[in-house]
């Protein structure tokens, strides 16, 4: 009787918390506190709650105090990062994970094997209208210019690593941090799980938090980078786009991207598959399924498991602070890049292009386009930039996926 009660006590979280020693116990408590703060941001402040809530709860689940080797542990990050558990010290051992892993380990395989982000892109493709982009092809360049922040931050991460001894970012880590500037969650996760899996939770949290903060981050930069006269520019109404064009577009984009940067095809190809399902109109059921049920299910799996990879040892470090700072820089400079080209286009067309649509070149569909609309309307209440901003906005999704492909091609095989 007493023995079984003692056994029960040794299995409790309290015992696990006390038995780990004071330093680890404090770390565990800090991690749970961070998870609770993120939950607060998701629930009360409504920062991308669809993702931040599962991420925060996943973080909570994997940081609960558990005794070592307990069968109740849901997530073993070491299975995915520690060479000891891997085949030849390099490849994850799926069989071992299936036999010994918890629920979150099994779900995390979808991230690690690169399944979830492309599937989310199918759903995004079903919800995206490339019409404004087809109607105004020049706006696609703004989506390219807004990738400036991605590369600028890549440099920034390497420089930070050179200047501060306690922060060590190699090229792979720098690329994963830079891609935060693409303002595209699934793309950032896709790159990071391949190049720098240890940074995944910090990068995912930074990417989604800053995406939610776009209405706060962008407007001051937009005002700084543009002249009032240009902000008031009313753009010509977009031409109508035929169904044939909308159907051909996804097919051609997939082929062009595959020819130049094959590493981007798993993302761009899935995005275009979803878009073709929507535009063709012949697979209505699939399109509805992809943008609702499939996307919701994957979002839940992705969020919970990415959050669960946030362990005290990987998350509580100077590197995480570095990532948070660099992520903000990435967002700012992506906005700057888009606005800069917007200004040039405004000047070249002698005031036919409103430079404010440039900031929508960072992906974050449709939030960034809404910001352009709202800032533009403040200057000129009769101005409707929303559809004009949607062009660069959806181009940004393609642009950031191509930038991701560039990084994967350069550093994926190191």
């Amino acid at each position, binding site marked *: 009787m007493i023995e079984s009660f003692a056994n029960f006590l040794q299995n409790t979280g309290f015992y696990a918390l006390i038995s780990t020693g004071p330093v680890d116990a404090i770390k565990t408590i800090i991690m749970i506190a961070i998870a609770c703060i993120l939950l607060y941001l998701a629930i009360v402040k409504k920062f991308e709650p669809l993702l931040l809530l599962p991420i925060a709860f996943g973080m909570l689940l994997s940081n609960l105090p558990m005794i070592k080797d307990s069968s109740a542990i849901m997530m073993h990050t070491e299975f995915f990062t520690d060479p000891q558990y891997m085949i030849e010290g390099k490849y994850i051992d799926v069989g071992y994970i299936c036999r010994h892993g918890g629920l979150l380990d099994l779900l995390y395989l979808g991230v690690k094997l690169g399944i979830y982000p492309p599937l989310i892109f199918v759903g995004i493709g079903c919800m995206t209208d490339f019409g404004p*982009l*087809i109607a105004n*092809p*020049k706006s*696609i*360049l703004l*989506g*390219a210019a807004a*990738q*400036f922040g*991605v*590369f*600028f931050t*890549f*440099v*920034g991460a*390497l*420089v930070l*690593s*050179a*200047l501060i001894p306690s*922060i*060590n*970012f*190699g*090229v*792979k*880590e*720098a690329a994963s941090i830079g891609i935060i500037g693409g303002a595209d969650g699934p793309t950032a996760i896709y790159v990071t799980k391949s190049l720098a899996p240890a940074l995944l939770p910090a990068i995912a949290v930074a990417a989604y938090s800053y995406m939610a903060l776009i*209405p706060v981050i962008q407007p001051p930069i937009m005002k700084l980078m543009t002249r009032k006269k240009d902000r008031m520019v*009313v753009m010509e*109404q977009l*031409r109508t786009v*035929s169904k*044939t*064009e909308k159907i*051909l*577009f996804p097919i*051609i*984009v997939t082929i*062009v*991207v595959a020819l*130049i*940067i094959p590493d981007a095809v798993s993302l761009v190809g899935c995005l275009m598959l979803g878009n073709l399902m929507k535009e063709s109109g012949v697979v209505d059921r699939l399109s509805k399924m992809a943008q609702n049920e499939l996307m919701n299910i994957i979002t839940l799996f992705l969020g919970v498991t990415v959050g669960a990879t946030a362990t005290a040892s990987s998350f509580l470090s100077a590197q995480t602070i570095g990532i948070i700072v660099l992520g903000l820089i990435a967002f700012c400079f992506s906005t700057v890049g888009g606005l800069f080209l917007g200004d040039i286009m405004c000047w070249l067309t002698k005031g036919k292009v409103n430079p404010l649509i440039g900031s929508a070149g960072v992906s974050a569909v449709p939030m960034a386009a*809404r*910001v352009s*609309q*709202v800032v533009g*309307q403040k200057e000129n209440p*009769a101005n*409707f930039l*929303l559809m004009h901003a949607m062009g660069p906005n959806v*181009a940004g999704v*393609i*642009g950031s996926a*191509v*930038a991701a492909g*560039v990084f994967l091609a*350069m550093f994926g095989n*190191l």
Partner: protein
Amino acid sequence: MYSEALLTGKNLPLSEALAMGGETTLLGLAIVFAVLIILMLVLMLFKVVFYKDPSKQTVSVDTAKSVEPAAEIMENTTDEEELVAVLTAAVAASLNTSTYNLRIKSYRRTDNKMPAWNKAGVTETINNRF
């Protein structure tokens, strides 16, 4: 191919960080622009192949001629006073005041073809989700 310092980030000299960063930035941005410029050219081709400008279509010329005078007559016969009355009432309703407190000095049609209530709805939706 890359030095140990570049791979791990340990003891990375600043000069090497900047050189690697600059190189990647130039190459990366060039590739991103190249892909998107090709897509832009394809889209421009789309316009040439698929798009017929309705204002340049020959069919519409006849109808346009017959419609235009009718429209002019319509505008001329529109009762100015009635329009001003409607505008006054609308402004009074939205400002929550009486029509006696208002005087419409001038009115002007804005460029946007979207009806005002439609516009108000769109603005409200955007602000709600902002």
